[in-house]
């Protein structure tokens, strides 16, 4: 069984990793021993373009779900993403300051943004999308993009 859900549009293939949850804006969340590792989906990184800079809120910052967690500047746009969970940032990916292109190269791996400590993962998980649900939203967004172009 594939580890990804995939859809192809023209020459682009967008992958949704099956082993994590998502917010509707395309921020993924992976539970790791009660903590939440977060990053951007493959669709988000491809749509946004090459990342020039990634400013992630520093370790020690406490955020409610929906508060700004990272500002990503690409060759096309500046986008601020919000935290998909409530918790405290305990680690920021050092690659975000040295080599933010990791977001483009490996969005579900080395391109992660931060690790957050969450009080209750089960509570947080309820408001997140499972991979299939995000995949459907993403497909809708790709179709919207196609109509625009």
């Amino acid at each position: 069984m594939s580890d990804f859900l995939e859809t192809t549009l023209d020459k682009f293939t967008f992958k949704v990793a099956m082993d994590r949850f998502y917010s509707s804006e395309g921020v993924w969340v992976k539970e790791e021993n009660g903590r939440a590792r977060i990053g951007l989906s493959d669709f988000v990184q491809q749509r946004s373009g090459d990342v020039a800079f990634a400013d992630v809120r520093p370790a020690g910052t406490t955020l409610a779900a929906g508060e700004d967690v990272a500002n990503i500047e690409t060759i096309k746009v500046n986008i601020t993403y919000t935290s998909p969970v409530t918790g405290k940032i305990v680690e920021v990916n050092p690659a975000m300051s040295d080599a933010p292109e990791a977001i483009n190269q490996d969005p579900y791996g080395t391109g992660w943004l931060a690790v957050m400590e969450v009080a209750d993962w089960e509570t947080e998980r309820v408001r997140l999308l499972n991979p299939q649900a995000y995949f459907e939203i993403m497909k809708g967004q790709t179709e919207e993009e196609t109509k625009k172009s």
Partner: protein
Amino acid sequence: MMEKNQKVIIVPCSGIGKPYGTVSREAAYEVTDEMRHAQTQLVSLALLVLGDEESRAVVAGYPAITIDGCKLACAAKMVQQSGGTVAQEIAVLDVYRRHKDLKPLGIAELNEGGKKLARVLAEEVTSMVDGIITGKKAGENA
């Protein structure tokens, strides 16, 4: 000492409507029109894509420096597909990452940051040209 190469080909990104593509071309113009006019020749990426025989012959005959506006690296790929040799490649984004204060904006006309970024990029390309001509890498002592 004899010069190792007499001429270097400069191939910038052809991305129209994107600030980073414009920066790559502005930098290429600065190098080929002003900074190293005698040692360089600009080749249009669009002509290579179209298979223009004259452009392909020029690219096949001399080492090239490609200036790409994004990770697709069309300039580098097209030079290789045209039978040329990419002696060095540079990406606008990498230069911008080293000069965050020079954010390029605008397309037909770059903002001040974009113009300065093009100048910085041109200086880096010029160092590459000198290195290729003399057979030394940029920054290498005599």
